[in-house]
């Protein structure tokens, strides 16, 4: 345990060793303002042992005394760390020969073989007032309890009285004193209405420094330094400063014995006020729409935490604006994100310090967003527009473009969000899809639909063709039937004539029976063929009716029937009509000819 502590101590000591070899500084100090003929100190301080101090040219001053050397060293341990410092100082007493501003060039000194140079100084030598300042030689004032205005006053100085809105000016409150200032009782500072103000850090203790003003030397204390950013345009009046000072005054009393040994002093309260200051604020020229409100000079940097994420993973885009200007008053630049990103309000963080040059620092904007769905997205550059008061115009700085690849999430987080975002009215907790169909499904080739296919139309076609065929067959049958009738009709007279010829042959042979039979057959056959009436259905009544239908004349029909009657009679009563055979034959031929003419 102890050993461990020892090690730790050694380590700390070793680490702190470089602290000893600190930077060697060599400085020169002197009051800023001196009166002509006044003695003053010029001191050189070096924090190491040096040799061979070389003074700069001091022809404008008289060296009354010096150098007197002093040495001091200190060693301290704070919280276990030790530090050591030594300082050597060389002191000269000088006196100015004439008035004016003089620059003392750097001095040099040799420390451990290296030559180090000091800073240079400027000393203002003023003629000086009639009465000497400070010290025991001070004369009591003519009227006790009052201090003349020229001996104690306060000034409010604004370095720029004509500026743009948003630009900055420095207001300095200084107290000038020639009297023995003991302290301040009440300081009422202006409220700086119309400005956004930021105090510059000053040392806690107000230290008075010699400064010349109107050719006289004053002890000057800076009470306050404030950066002012005008927030409105036009002329703004800054209120006056009012300070109650406590001044120590020597009180002149009636001569007494102790007068020369003890001075009587009294604290006198003196109120001083400054003059009000008028500042003119110019409006900014008409600017672009997305002007950020920044006035000054800025730089822009952007960074992103990740460009390759999963759904619903958070991404932070950070935009850093750094520079000099009204940093505190910058609005967050607009970020154009893809439409279905979930975006949170940007987090703003600023860090700045008020200095004599203005407000320096940076402000950062952090945009947190969640890509909801997988895909490739582009975040376009962010435009930051500020007004440059020196150049008097608007300047745009752009951040870089980011490409984001969003991978599909594992689904666990998505589900939860989905149910909250999408539909709350769906309550299908106890429901499930219908089960799969188990039966042997009728698989068929893809895209093969019977409807509209070739075979589908083939069925229609087959139907039409079938009907057409049927109809054609029917038609043909009708035609054929008609043909038979016509042939028969055409042949009718020929057949009849042939039969009559046969009858003629029987006539010559004297075969009476056969003759009449042939004539009857010729007649009936003719009728059957001509009228397309089956042979068996023929009788005399039907024959006369059909003949009448066929527009045969009455006479021909009567003759036709008569011949048939005669033939029938002769066949069944032979002998008697034998000699009339020739007559009947001629008659039959005549009727046949007549009938053929009339019917057709």
């Amino acid at each position: 345990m102890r050993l461990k502590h020892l090690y730790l101590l050694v380590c700390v000591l070793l680490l702190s060793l470089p602290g000893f070899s600190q930077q060697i500084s060599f400085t020169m100090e002197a009051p800023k303002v001196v009166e002509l003929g006044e003695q003053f100190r010029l001191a050189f301080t070096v924090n190491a042992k040096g040799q061979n101090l070389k003074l700069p040219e001091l022809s404008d001053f008289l060296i009354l005394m010096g150098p007197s050397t002093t040495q001091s060293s200190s060693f301290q341990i704070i919280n276990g760390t030790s530090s050591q410092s030594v300082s050597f100082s060389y002191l000269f007493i000088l006196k100015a020969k004439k008035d004016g501003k003089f620059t003392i060039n750097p001095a040099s000194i040799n420390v451990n073989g290296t030559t180090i140079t000091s800073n240079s100084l400027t000393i203002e030598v003023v003629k000086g007032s009639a009465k000497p300042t400070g010290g025991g030689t001070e004369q009591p004032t003519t009227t006790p309890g009052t201090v003349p205005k020229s001996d104690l006053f306060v000034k409010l100085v604004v370095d720029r009285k004509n500026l743009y809105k948003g630009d900055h000016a420095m207001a300095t409150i200084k107290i000038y004193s020639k009297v023995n200032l003991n302290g301040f009782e009440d300081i009422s500072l202006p409220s700086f209405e119309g400005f956004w103000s930021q105090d510059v850090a000053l040392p806690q203790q107000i230290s008075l420094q010699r400064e010349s003003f109107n050719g006289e030397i004053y002890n000057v204390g800076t009470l306050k330094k404030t950066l002012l950013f005008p927030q409105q345009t036009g002329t703004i009046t800054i209120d006056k400063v009012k300070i109650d000072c406590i001044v120590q005054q020597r009180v002149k009393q009636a001569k007494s014995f102790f007068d020369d040994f003890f001075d009587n002093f009294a604290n006198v309260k003196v109120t001083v006020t400054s003059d009000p200051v008028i500042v003119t604020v110019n409006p900014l020229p008409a600017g672009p729409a997305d002007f950020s409100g920044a006035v000054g000079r800025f730089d822009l940097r952007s960074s992103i935490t990740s460009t390759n994420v999963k759904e619903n993973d958070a991404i932070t885009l950070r935009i850093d604006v750094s520079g000099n200007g009204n940093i505190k008053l910058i609005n967050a630049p607009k970020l154009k994100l893809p439409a279905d990103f979930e975006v949170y309000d940007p987090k703003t963080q600023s860090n700045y310090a008020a200095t004599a040059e203005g407000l320096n620092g940076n402000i950062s904007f952090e945009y947190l967003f969640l890509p909801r769905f997988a895909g490739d997205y582009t975040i376009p550059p962010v435009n930051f527009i500020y007004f440059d008061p020196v150049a008097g115009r608007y300047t745009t700085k752009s951040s870089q473009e980011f490409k984001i690849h969003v991978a599909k999430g594992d689904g666990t987080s998505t589900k939860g969000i989905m149910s909250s975002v999408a539909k709350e009215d769906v309550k299908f907790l106890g429901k499930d899809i219908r089960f799969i169909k188990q039966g042997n499904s009728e698989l068929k080739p893809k895209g093969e639909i019977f409807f509209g296919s070739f075979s589908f139309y083939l069925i229609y076609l087959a139907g039409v063709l079938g009907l057409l065929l049927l109809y054609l067959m029917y038609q043909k049958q009708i035609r054929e039937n008609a043909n038979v009738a016509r042939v028969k009709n055409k042949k009718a007279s020929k057949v009849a004539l042939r039969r009559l010829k046969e009858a003629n042959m029987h006539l010559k042979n004297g075969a009476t029976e056969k003759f009449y039979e042939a004539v009857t057959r010729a007649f009936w056959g003719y009728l059957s063929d001509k009228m397309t009436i089956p042979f068996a259905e023929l009788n005399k009544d039907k024959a006369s009716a059909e003949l009448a239908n066929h527009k045969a004349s009455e006479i021909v029909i009567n003759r036709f029937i008569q011949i048939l009657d005669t033939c029938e009679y002769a066949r069944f009563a032979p002998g008697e009509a034998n000699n009339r055979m020739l007559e009947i034959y001629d008659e039959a031929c005549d009727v046949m000819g007549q009938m053929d003419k009339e019917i057709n």
Partner: protein
Amino acid sequence: MKMKTLIRKYSLLLLIILSCTISRGQANAIVDSVSAGNQLYNSGKYQDAIRKYQNVLSQGFESAELYFNLGNAFYKSGNATYAILNYERAKKLAPNDEDIRYNLDLAHTQIIDNVVSLPEPGFLRWWKQLINSQSISSWGAMSIITFFTFLSLFGLFLLSRSFRVKRLAFWVSIAAISLSAITFSIGSHLTSKLINHNTAVITDRSVRVKSSPSETGTELFIVHEGVTVQLTDKLGEWVNVSLPDGNKGWVKESSMVRI
């Protein structure tokens, strides 16, 4: 009712005649593959079941039941988008199947967008119901049967000698040919719907719908995966989509799968 079963039987007969072209062995292997997929589904191995079913589809065979089972497997494995796609495909083949419609409705509740369909006029709804009450094959068979009825009646009209029979046959044949034409047009309408794949399901997680077919077009609205859209126009890789709620815009075709 009797008519319906008759038609179904008839279409079945036609299908059997058609499927005679598939060799028996191959058909058996595919049927085995489907039942193997069903068994995997039963035992909860949905991913493997999906693979089995897709294998059958890749061999060029399909059926409403197969798409339905594949949709179920996708649904069970948490992919509502592809479940919707396959239910829609099944619905195309079997428009009147109540199970498919039920599961499709359920899958629609799982997607992000709640697209409310525009209300349809009553007669249109009735007409769609009528059209979807029979499969395409049934409509086709009906058309053929009525056509043959027409043919025989027309034949009777041509051949009959009786005037009264002729007149009756003529008017009834006119009615039959009209019926045949109507059923045929319904069938061809359904077929064109089946052949022209002009409906699609959005498969990209989130799609910005543009006002014009280019990247620079104004973004009109966003749709998420699972939404069924109607394709009305096409220009290069862009298609004009119309949502069930009436919204229209241009989307890249790569962000969707046609049904």
